[in-house]
């Protein structure tokens, strides 16, 4: 794991939580969608908050794909859950919301989970290059 790779993981966490918050804000403005007018969900993207949220989520998707190209799914998902912790810290120190004891406990559990998974190896699944390359035994240059 290089510094660049940790940066990509941080990008996944930050863009996902920021994108979700914007979507949530936008959908509250759009209001409840009736089951009889399911197509009105398409019009929701006209809301500027939803549009901006989608833009950030596209950035999240690109960095998520990058991370999955060199790490396991069961590594990337817990490792990027620091986003939830970030969100709670932003709520406390920027938005001055009350962060309850239960929430601090939740933050503690997530941080412990992140600590657990990042202590292990990032990649354990067989990759295509292992299967296809005839010289798989040759030492691979680690970036």
């Amino acid at each position, binding site marked *: 794991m290089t510094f660049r790779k940790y940066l990509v993981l941080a990008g996944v966490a930050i863009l996902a939580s920021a994108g979700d918050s914007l979507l*949530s804000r936008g959908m*509250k403005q759009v209001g409840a969608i009736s089951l009889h007018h399911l197509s009105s969900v398409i019009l929701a993207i006209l809301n500027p908050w939803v549009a901006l949220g989608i833009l950030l989520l596209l950035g999240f998707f690109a960095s998520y794909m990058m991370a999955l*190209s060199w790490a396991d799914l069961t590594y990337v998902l817990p490792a990027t859950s620091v986003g939830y912790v970030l969100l709670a810290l932003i709520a406390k120190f920027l938005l001055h919301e009350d962060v309850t004891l239960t929430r601090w406990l939740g933050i503690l559990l997530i941080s412990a989970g992140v600590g657990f998974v990042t202590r292990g190896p990032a990649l354990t699944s067989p990759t295509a290059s292992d299967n296809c390359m005839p010289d798989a035994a040759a030492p691979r240059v680690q970036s």
Partner: protein
Amino acid sequence: MRHLYTWGAITIIVLASTTGDVLLSRAMKQVGDVGRVRREAGWIAVVFRVLRNPNFLLGLLAMASAFFSLLFALSWADVSLVAPASASLTFVANAVAAKIFLHERVDHLRWMAALLVAAGVVLLAA
């Protein structure tokens, strides 16, 4: 009734996003380390390799279904219920699916990580 809709949507979100995650992860393992492919063949080659991968396209379809179910669920219930409920269930579902379908070594460290994060996400919303 709204309750039923909400949990139905949450179930669909969890199933669709787990399917999507597994397919996307498989696709990106087939593409190979993006950093290495970029150095060897350039960014355009990376994008083409990803877009031509059938697992990627199927995964994208599954993710899009999950996304629209999320929009529905958010319009019926609070984000503080929908987001943590679907996220924490997806963490656990993904650990099971990654072991079965991607043959990842989900050892006790990773099980602990998935369960701790799932429990933590629930507490954040409590």
